[in-house]
């Protein structure tokens, strides 16, 4: 949605959204629910993820006659993550549904996750009838109250005649400018209520229109600063991908010869196999990315909010750099890191503006050479002794080699997520689908379901999960089986909640309280019980063949890789530490 919303003028033509083919069999809405579904259809929504329940039943009943593909999930948290991932892959808001009370509260983790990662998403929740609201009725929760801090905006529908427009507005708002989740709470009397009003064209509210074009005078100043920089560094965040600006970003960096670092959500904005690319920076980012951040004299940050996992201690973050900050959200300017040159606008538009204003590329030969030296000095490498258990990094590399460049990787949160981001070489946007800001364990499997449904049929979807994360949302496997979804789950199983174990060893004198998961089920057998295919792999020799077999299987498959439980994630910038002082081994922490 945001990719179409480059300028306000371009989005003024709502007619183009309407599918002419639908006109023939069009039946006007007679209830609030039908109006809700028509609003989704008008906006081109193709899929929705949800779980049935009392108060949302009227909406589901209206879905009965709709072409929207509804994926019945096993848990509402999974519905939210699947919708989130669908939205990430399609670059448009995903849609999830849940009933009132526990249905809505189960969505909350997924909504919070979408909010932290600026993922567009619309949540529709059932609610008890209006006249019972406030009476502590069965399955009543103050859903708008609970989700207000986690959404761009939420709505409490109060009229069958306008509920369709409300849903359309919420969907449009979710994708506009900096995307994020929105929610419409739907009391049962409103969705059951009669109406003869069709929803109009979906438009975001008047009060939230973002600025797309940066102030030209500010662009000129920033362009001069770039021309005269000695050690310029581009930092591409998730905003580059959400703004659909990877083409602009790539040509900008290459034309000017400026090295590129990404954030974790920015993975895929710039090809990691490009000479200019230093991969991603931050707590477990590459040594060379963190060295570049530490020594740059001009950081050109695009679509990033300078999360603490990126910056480490702010006092030592890019300590020598002036900062050009391009962002569509003015509130991100100077929130965490002061922007010497703020440019408020859409990432692609502003990069084009800058490109037009720069006459001469900065003289950065020495700097590029220095960045290359750091790549040699701090290689991302690992030992694979035969007498030790399987290394997770090896598994990730085998998976990467066995799959095409456009393969989508989803993950949970923890050590496996870091290995999946470090040892897979990402070259395309929207192929890295993970939980960054909220750090939601259990994101990976439901996200793989959403990504699978969003992706092209010939695209592979691989979920790299941890044993702890996998267990948190494992019920989603039943959905993948029922929907016959071709996804491959690679569990990097160390029978620990591994990142916690790593921190306990480093910072809590090895007291592994509540971190051992040696009661894990046999995931290969569990997968078979669900109706998926399952394998267990302990040895190096089995990795490549098993991966090939699992990828070839047309349906959900799970490989339980029993990996070295002692393996840790490095490099590591300790929390609040200096990026340039990343540790390479535990004794450096």
């Amino acid at each position, binding site marked *: 949605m945001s990719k179409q919303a480059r300028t306000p003028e371009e989005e003024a033509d709502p007619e183009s959204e309407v599918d002419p083919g639908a006109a023939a069999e069009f039946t006007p809405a007679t209830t609030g629910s039908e109006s809700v579904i028509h609003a989704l259809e008008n906006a081109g929504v193709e899929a929705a993820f949800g779980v049935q329940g009392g108060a949302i039943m009227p909406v589901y009943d209206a879905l009965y006659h709709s072409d929207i593909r509804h994926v019945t999930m096993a848990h509402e948290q999974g519905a939210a993550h699947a919708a989130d991932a669908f939205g990430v892959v399609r670059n448009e808001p995903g849609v999830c549904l849940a009933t009132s009370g526990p249905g809505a509260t189960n969505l909350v983790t997924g909504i919070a996750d979408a909010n932290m990662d600026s993922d567009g998403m619309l949540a529709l929740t059932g609610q008890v009838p209006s006249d019972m609201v406030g009476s502590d009725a069965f399955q009543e929760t103050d859903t708008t109250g609970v989700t207000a801090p986690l959404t761009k905006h939420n709505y409490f529908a109060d009229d069958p005649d306008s509920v369709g427009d409300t849903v359309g507005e919420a969907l449009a708002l979710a994708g506009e400018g900096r995307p994020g989740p929105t929610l419409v709470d739907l009391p049962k009397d409103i969705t059951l209520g009669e109406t003869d009003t069709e929803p109009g064209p979906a438009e975001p509210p008047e*009060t939230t229109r973002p600025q797309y074009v940066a102030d030209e005078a500010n662009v000129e100043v920033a362009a001069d600063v770039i021309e005269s920089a000695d050690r310029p560094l581009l930092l591409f965040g998730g905003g580059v991908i959400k703004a659909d600006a990877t083409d602009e970003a790539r040509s900008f960096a290459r034309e000017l010869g400026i090295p590129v670092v990404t954030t974790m959500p920015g993975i895929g904005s710039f090809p990691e196999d490009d000479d200019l690319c230093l991969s991603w920076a931050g707590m477990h980012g590459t040594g060379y990315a963190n060295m570049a951040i530490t020594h740059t004299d001009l950081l050109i940050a695009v679509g990033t909010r*300078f999360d603490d996992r990126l910056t480490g201690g*702010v006092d030592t973050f890019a300590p020598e750099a002036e900062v050009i900050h391009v962002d569509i959200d003015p509130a991100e300017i100077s929130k965490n890191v*002061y922007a010497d040159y703020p440019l408020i606008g859409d990432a692609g538009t502003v990069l084009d503006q800058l490109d037009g204003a720069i006459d001469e590329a900065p003289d950065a030969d020495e700097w590029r050479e220095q960045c290359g030296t750091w790549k040699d000095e701090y290689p991302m490498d690992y*030992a694979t002794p035969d007498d030790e258990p399987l290394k997770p990094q090896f598994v990730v590399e085998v998976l990467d080699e066995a799959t095409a460049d456009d393969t989508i990787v989803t993950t949970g949160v923890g050590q496996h997520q870091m290995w999946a981001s470090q040892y897979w070489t990402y070259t395309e946007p929207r192929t890295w689908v993970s939980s960054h800001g909220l750090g939601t364990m259990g994101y990976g499997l439901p996200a793989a379901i959403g990504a699978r449904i969003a992706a092209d049929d010939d695209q592979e979807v691989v979920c790299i999960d941890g044993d702890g994360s996998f267990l948190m949302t494992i019920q989603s496997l039943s959905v993948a089986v029922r929907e016959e979804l071709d996804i491959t789950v690679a569990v990097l199983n160390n029978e620990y909640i591994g990142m916690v174990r790593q921190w306990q060893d480093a910072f809590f004198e090895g007291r592994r309280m509540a971190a051992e998961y040696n009661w894990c089920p046999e995931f290969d057998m569990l997968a078979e019980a669900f109706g998926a295919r399952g394998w267990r792999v302990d040895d190096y020799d089995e990795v490549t063949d098993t991966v090939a077999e699992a990828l070839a299987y047309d349906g959900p498959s799970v490989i339980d890789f029993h990996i070295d439980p002692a393996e840790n994630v*490095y490099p590591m910038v300790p929390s609040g530490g200096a990026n*340039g002082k990343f540790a390479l*081994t535990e004794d450096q922490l």
Partner: protein
Amino acid sequence: MSSEDTGSDAGRDGRERPPKHGLAGPEPDERPHPKGRRNAQGIRIDPEVEAQHEPRRAVFSALVEDEPGVLSRIAGLISRRQFNIESLTVGPTTVEGHSRITMVVEETEPDIDQIGKQLGKLKPVITVGELDADAVRTELVLLKVEGSEPDKVHAITDMYDGQTLDAGAETITVQLTGDEQEIDDAIDAFRQFGIIEIARTGYTALARGNQATAPGEKPGTADEPTRPTNTQ
């Protein structure tokens, strides 16, 4: 683990490999690190220009859509981002469906900047901005004091241009308006009678003269903006 027992190890492909657990490369202390620093606000420390960020008081005026929950959205935003709010008043404006919120906060300069920007992101907020120092601002207080010395109470009330709203045998309730300092002075003056209860409204304010109170407003007309003008 020590660096001795994590020495390089030949890998399966015969390549030289890093330590069994960890990565190869110069240790943290062997790397060059710039001397530069940023302060807590993420501003590079430059002794020449670094500004001290002492908290100051700021008055914000916001035009908002008068919809259910708007006050809770604003209060929730302020509390979850840990901004320090001193007072908040709300009331209708010349346009039906709009309310004006006047808010006094005490924060550092970067946080005052954040408050305005974060409020501006809320969907019901039409426009918001900080008022200039010369804005017209006033506060109302109701004071209930003991009624044993009515003549003296009335004299002090007159002195502060107040009004007596209720006078009984036991208590006298007066109303006073003014800026914060005047109200504080008046409260001090009334202490001698024994103050029973106080209710203060906090500031409400308008920009002086022809200036707009909130960005995009058109002073002298009954019109109010329905959407903000883009500002950078």
